[in-house]
Every structure is written in C-alpha cells, then in structure tokens.
C-alpha cells in the first residue's frame, strides 16, 4: 500500500509546476556556475604552480645552508568548486626561516584592501538555497493540501493506516527530490571533470560520494521539515508561510547571528597583548645573545656576495673571521632556534583564538540544518578550518625537518658551509698568502708575494656552486582524506539525527491530524 501511495504522489509531484521550475533552475544554474568555478580553480592552481616552481628554482640556486629560506604554499583544493569554505579567506603560504618562526600568512590578507571577501560562492550554494526551498515547496501541501481538497478524508476512510500514508508521502518526496539532486550533482561533476587540470584520486571520489550522501540527507531533512508544517497547519497557505519563515531563519538569520554571537562571547586575543609578548621575547633573545662574546678583531678581508631569497654568503675571507663566525653561529643559532619555537607558541595561541571563535560560531549555527550541511560539505571538500590547521601542523613539521637537515649537514651549524663557500683549508692558505703581502719587507718580496697569491687564486677559483639538495626534505602537502572523512562524521550524524527527529515529530503530528 505504501508503494501505491508513493507512486501516485511521485507522479503527481513530477507534474507540478513548482517542481519543474526548481529542477530546471538547479540544473541550469549548475551548468552556468561550474565553468566559472572551474576557471577560478584553474587560475588559483596556476598561481600556485607558478609560485612553487619559482620558489623551487630559487631554492636550487642557494649556495650556503644559511640561506635556505624558502616559502611553501598550500595547493588549492580541487573540490573547492563544490564547497569553497575558507579556501579564499586563508591564503595559506608560509615562509620557512631557520631562526624565525614559520611566518604564516593565514591571518593577514594581502592585496587590495578595498576588495573585501564577501559571501562565498560554490556549488553547495545551489543545494543550500534552491534545493532546500524546492524541498519545502514540494512538502508544504502534502497533507494540508489534501485535506483542503478533501482527498485525505477519502483516503483515510479506506483501510489504509495513517503511518502508511505518511511513509508513502515521505518516500515519494525523497524520490522526487532525489531526481534533481542527482542530476545536479552529475552535471556539476561532468562539467568539472571535463576540464583537463581537474584530476580526481580515489579519495576525492570518496569525498564526492559522501558529499552526495550529505546532500541527500540534507534534502530529506528539509522535506520533512516542510511535511511537519504541513501536518501542523490546517491550511496549506499557512504551512507555506511557516515553512518560508523558518527557511529564512535557517538560511540567513542563524548563520549571521551565530557569527555575531561568537565574536561577542569569545573575543579575540588582543593584538597589543600578543605584540607585547613577542616584544618581551625579542628582548630576552637580545639579552641572551648579548652574553655571547666572539672576537672578530683579527679579521682582515671582506667579500660577500648576494644569494637567493635576499641572503648573502661569504666568498673568500680570512681564516680568523671564518673561525670567529663559525664559533658565533655554533653558539647563537641554537639560542635563536629555541626562541623561534617559543614565539611560534605565541603565534599559535593567537591563531588558536581565531580558530576558537570560528569553531564556536560553527557549533552555534548547528541548530540550522542549512549551516550543518554547509559545514559538512566544507569538511569533505578539504576547505574547512581543520584542513588549514592540518596545513599549519605540516608546515611546522617541515620546518623541523629543514632545521634537522641543516644541522646534520653543517655539524650543529659550526661548519663553514653554513655561511661561506670557501673551505677552512682554502681560507687558511688564502690568509697565509695575504699576510705575506702585508708583511713583505721590500718591493721585491711584495711583488713575489702578490704573484704567489695571484697564482694561487688562479689555481683555486671561487666556486660558487649551488648546494647539493639531493636529500633535502622537500615539502609535500598531504591531504589526509581519512581525517577529513572522520571529521565529517559528527556533521553527517547530526543530519541523520535531524531526519529521525523530524520524522518522529511528523509521525506524531500526523497521527493526531484532524482530517475534517
């Protein structure tokens, strides 16, 4: 009996004008949106690859270990076309420097300050807005409309149980709405995949699959919400008005209000406080560095050359300076590293206060199925705040790897290769010859000494060769699909629970529905 009712309802629904309008709008809008979103993704991907390539090329020309100060970038998420999340708000590049914290340009926006990032734009917007309205429109007159026409009375006067009617309507609604959801998803995927730069891995397919499940669950929840109002009101006009008002509350009021509330309840750590802490740390560092005393007074010759990333290296210098600098580095770099870790803690706690506000806003908005759905989609697409957190942690790990790499290559920062391209032996020989000229008694001895230095310089030309970075720990961004999927579970569960609760409420309301 349920199937019969469902079939009848389904056929009736398919023929309605509102369904046609909604379904066509979904598909047409997706077909319009997707190429734009794909173009946007392509642009970001190009910028990213350019940045990475430039950066790597520059890194490969680095001559001394001190100047390994490259920048790492976060690749754009391919599924950001489906849910943009925070993809554009958090830029996501970090500068790795040995004695400084990884500078995370995630909280500071660069570029045109007159172009504020407004509401995000992605495929999930269609589901969030249009499909949810469509679900409400399909559901609002399912019960109250039949009562108005008098068919509900006729149906229930037969041997059909009320729960069968309700289940039939539910199944019919879900199947009806499943059609546009599936078509829209398929159209979106086909358009996106038709672009050559888009390549899905198996984890991406899992993500897309779960996104589809989430979309279906969300649509079902919205449909049942409409059905509930239909079971509560006697007239379909009333259930429509109720449905629309609750929609505007869920879609617009709650997302905005939760952000407002979160900023009020959990204010950000003040910038002055953070700057003060960083400043005191800097002063501590300066005073500790002040205790390190190295004698540079014997140094003779200065010859530095510019290197990649705006650094410089020592080309050919005397042994006294070289030894002094070696000693200085061996003493100061560990101190600087320790302070860099401390200031990273401060930066991290500052960032955490940003993220905590965001988390609070998200939890508050969870009463709205629309917001819950949005969050689930962002998590699944890998554009959520947690994936940025993940990026930041990876950056930190990478920095430690780089530090370890340099440490092992330069013998705890004490070797000359840390800052100079000449070896100690070379430098010692050079100094000996140089001092010979200085100490020459007469013209003849001086010419001879100069000749010797020139010969030696010809035999040992300056070899400014780039470092051999064969075993360098290159940064590779690993998107953890399993982590994202497990993060999405609470949101998905919330959607399912909403479905169950709404169904129970519908059931109770319909059981007591006055069909007269």
């Amino acid at each position, binding site marked *: 009996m349920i199937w019969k009712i469902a079939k009848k309802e389904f056929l009736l629904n398919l023929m*309605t*004008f*509102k369904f046609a*309008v909604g379904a066509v*709008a979904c598909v047409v*809008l997706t077909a*319009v*949106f997707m190429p*734009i*979103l794909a173009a*946007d993704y392509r*642009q970001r991907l190009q910028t990213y690859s350019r940045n990475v390539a430039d950066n790597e090329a520059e890194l490969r020309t680095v001559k001394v270990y001190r100047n390994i100060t490259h920048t790492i970038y976060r690749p754009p998420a391919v599924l950001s076309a489906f849910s943009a999340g*925070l993809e554009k*708000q*958090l830029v996501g590049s970090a500068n790795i420097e040995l004695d400084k914290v990884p500078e995370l340009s995630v*909280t500071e926006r*660069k*570029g*045109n*300050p*007159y*172009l*504020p*990032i*407004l*509401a*995000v*734009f992605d495929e999930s*917007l269609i589901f969030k*807005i*249009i499909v949810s*309205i469509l679900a409400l*429109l399909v559901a609002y007159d399912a019960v109250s409309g039949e009562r108005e026409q008098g068919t509900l009375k006729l149906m229930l006067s037969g041997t059909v149980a009320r729960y069968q009617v309700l289940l039939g309507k539910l199944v019919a609604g879900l199947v009806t709405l499943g059609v546009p959801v599936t078509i829209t998803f398929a159209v979106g995927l086909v358009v996106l995949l038709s672009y050559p730069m888009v390549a899905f891995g198996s984890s991406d397919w899992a993500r897309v699959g779960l996104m589809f499940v989430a979309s279906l669950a969300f649509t079902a929840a919205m449909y049942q919400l409409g059905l509930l109002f239909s079971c509560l009101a006697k007239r*379909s*006009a*009333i259930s*429509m*008005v*109720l449905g*629309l*008002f609750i929609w*505007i*509350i869920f879609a*617009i*009021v709650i*997302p*905005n*209000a939760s*952000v*407002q509330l*979160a*900023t*009020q309840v959990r204010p950000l*750590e*003040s*910038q002055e406080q953070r700057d003060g802490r960083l400043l005191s740390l800097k002063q501590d560092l300066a005073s500790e560095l002040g205790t390190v005393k190295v004698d540079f007074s014997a140094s003779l010759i200065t010859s530095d050359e510019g290197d990649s990333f705006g650094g410089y290296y020592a080309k050919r210098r005397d042994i006294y300076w070289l030894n002094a600098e070696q000693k200085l580095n061996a003493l100061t770099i560990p101190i600087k590293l320790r302070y860099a870790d401390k200031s990273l803690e401060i930066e991290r706690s500052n960032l955490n206060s*940003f993220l905590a*506000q*965001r988390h609070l*806003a998200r939890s508050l908005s969870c009463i709205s199925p629309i917001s819950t759905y949005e969050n689930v989609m962002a998590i699944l697409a890998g554009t959520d705040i947690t994936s940025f957190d993940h990026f930041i942690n990876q950056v930190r790990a990478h920095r430690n790897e780089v530090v370890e790499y340099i440490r092992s290559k330069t013998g705890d920062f004490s070797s000359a290769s840390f800052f100079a391209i000449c070896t100690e032996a070379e430098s010692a020989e050079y100094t000996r010859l140089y001092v010979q000229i200085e100490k020459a008694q007469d013209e003849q001895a001086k010419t001879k000494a100069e000749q010797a230095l020139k010969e030696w310089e010809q035999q040992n030309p300056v070899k400014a060769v780039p470092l051999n970075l064969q075993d360098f720990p290159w940064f590779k961004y690993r998107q953890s699909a399993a982590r994202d999927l497990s993060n999405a579970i609470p949101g998905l569960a919330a959607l399912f629970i909403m479905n169950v609760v709404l169904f129970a409420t519908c059931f109770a309301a319909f059981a007591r529905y006055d069909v007269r």
Partner: protein
Amino acid sequence: MIRQIARKEVLENLLSLRFALSVLLTTCLFAVCGHVFVNAHREQSKDYWKRTNENLSALAEQSNQLYKVAFYKQGIYRKPQPLALCAEGQEGALPNFFEVNAFTADLPRTKGQVNFALPQFSHIDWALIVSLILSFAALVFTYDGICGEKESGTLSLMLANAVPRHKVLLGKYAGTMITLAIPLILGMLVSLIIMVSSGEVAVGGREWLQISTIVAISLLYLSIFVLLGMFISSRTGHSPNSMAILLLAWVVGVILLPSLCRIIFDVACKEPTDEELQRRLNQVREEIWNNHEKYGKNAGYMSNDPNDPGNNPPARARLQTALMDATNQLLQEHHNKWLEQALARRDFACLSPAVIYQRAAEAIAGTGINRCADLYRQAKRYGADLKEFIRSRDMEDPKSLHLIGPEQNMAYSWRAISHDPVGFEMVPKFQERDLALSQSLKLAVWDIGLLVLFNLVFFAAAFVSFLKYDVR
C-alpha cells in the same frame, strides 16, 4: 475607491499569520541590530580615541624641533560612524589605518584584529535586514495578491462592480506597501530607540535627515518586490505557481547574482600586485639616482658634515623631492587602481537590486568604500597642509637652509629644516570631515534612479498583465 481597497487590504493583512511572523522577526532583528551596534560602537569609539590620543601625544613630543614634526609618521584612524547602524558597508574589512607625514602618505592598511576565519564579517545592519528579510516578506505578502483572490472567487465579484482595474491594482499596491511599512518603521524605531537611549551616539539634525532618506530608499527598494510580486501574481492563475516563480526570482536576484557577478569579475580581472608596485618603484628610483647630475652638481653625494665642500644642498633637496614625488605618484596610481577595481566589481554586481540598494544606503550613510577613499584623500591633503605650515614656520628661523626636502638626514645634519621648537597648539591636526549631504546624495542619485527604473518597469509589467488578466 482606491482608498477603500487599500484599507481592506491592510486590514486583511494585519490579521494574517504572515504579518504577525514578519513583524516579530523583523522587530527582533532590528532590536538585535541596535544592540550589537551600540556595543560595537562603544568599543570602536574607545579604541579610536585611545589611538588618536596616542598619536597626538607622540606628535606633541616631536614638536620640540620643527623638522621632527615634518617627518613624524602620524597614524590616522577611521572614526566610527553613527550611521553604520543603517548601512555598515563592510567597513570591518575595509582599510582603517592611514600613515601620513608632511611628504608622503602610505597606502591604506587594515589594522587591528579582523577574524578572517569567520565566514563573513559584514555586521548586521538595516541594509542587510531590509535587503534580505523584508524583501522576502514583500514576496510573501504579494504572491497571492491577485491569483489568490481569483482562486477564492472574490476578484470576479470585485470586478463585477463599477471598479476599474487600475484602481484595484493601485489599491492593492498601496495596501501592501502600507502593511510592509509597518514592520519596517516599527523595527527602525526600535533600533533607533535602543541607540538613542544608550547615550553613546549623538544624533543630530543631519543624521535624522540621512535616516529619513534611508527610510525612503528602503521603501523604494521594497516597492520593487511588491510590484514584482503583483506582476507574477497576475501572470499566473495558481498561487503556488506564483510563489515558486517569485522565490526563484528572489534567490537569483538577491542571493546568487551578487556572488556570481563578483566571482566572474575576480576571475576576469587581475589584481595589481605588490611585487609589481615594488618593481616599478625600484625602477623609477634607480633611474633618478642614475641621472642625479641632472638635479645639480654632486646631488648624489651627501656628507653629514655641513661644511664639507662636496655637499650641494639645493641639488640634494631637488633630487630627494623628485624621488618622493615619483614615489607618491606611483603610490597614488596603485591606490587608484585598487579603488577602480573595487568600484568596478561593485558596479558589475549592480544587476541585482539588492546591491543597488546597499550601495545607495551606504552612500547616504557616509560609509563604505567611498568614505575610506575620501579619508585617504583627506589624509593626503592634511599632509600637504602640514608641509605648508612647516614651510611658513621655517621662514622664521634664520639658521635654517629653508630646504623643505623629504630626506630626514639632510634636515638633521645640515639643518635644512629648522630645529627650533614649535608650539604644539599651532601645529595643524588631522580632523576628519564627513561628506556633505548634498555630495552623498550626488553619489546615491544614480542608484536611486536605477531603483526608480526597476519600479517603473515592474509597475508597467504588473499593470499590463493585470489589465489582461483572466479573472475566471
């Protein structure tokens, strides 16, 4: 007759559920809006005065020597506006900090804590409530205005009498507008009462004039949706169909279109980058340095000893002024590019009436992008005034070289600018001036024109459709 129909409409609407719901929802939102605004304004004012006073006391310290006043980089902050209640204009994300001295002004920056991790940082304001919530309510009021009456059979009864059709249409329009004006005015009153009673914000005659203009623009904007609703309602015979079409139109026009236009613009347009600016700056500077002989003998040479015969102070001053002029010009060009891009993006989004309305409200309230750009202009003008002041005071010092050039070292070691103390009260201080109301009206006049145009188009469409409407 029109009045009678309007009265009937109003009375009928007043008793309906949708009216109760929309009044409840909008009043709550307006109250929250007022409350949030008062809190934010209090914080921002405290912050603003603290920073401004810090800046002034730092400037006062510099006034022991005239040249220091010229070189001190003053921080100018954006003053919180009382009318941000009506239209905040995304000011939370716009630049709020300008650094200026007598010779140059840095590019505007955003200073302070803005949480970019939050989904959107536009504050709740009147423009948001009207453009999203009340426009939606307008559709809910009008979707069955005509086809609903046809379905219940009253339309044919009404038209069977000697009432011409246009009177019915006008009566219904007037009735719906009056019903819609009730939540609007009520809500605005509530949030105004909250604002005024808090005592935080001084509201003068000028502000009242601005507020009433914003109310008028809001009504004009809502009227578009009322007319759209009546148009669609008189094109369809069945009220659910009319609702479906209206909802689609609303979603596309108010929510999707602005975002779509923005993203298309972003994909199509490249942002002027900082690297590009730096490259051009370096290039221009290098060119000037390489041709330094053009500005006089030894312009490129500078020794801190004022008696060094190699020094040529006038040439040096010319060189430095040329450098600074070139820098300022490039910065100005870069700023203009930024501004053009931001304004063009918004103009492009103006296919949507919601964006037009928000832009108009912003212009009247004196907030948003135009205000920030104007503040930057004012800061630069202030820098020029300060330079003039320095020049006139410098004349009084016989020991000075009277070379008002932008090199601090020159002013310090050669005494190119006077080292005499200057009375702090005489130093010009930055004072932000609001745009005159006539000027903000001029900014908004195009938008108001567009809103009127939308109204006329939908009115004509509704009129024609209703005249041809089949009431059976």
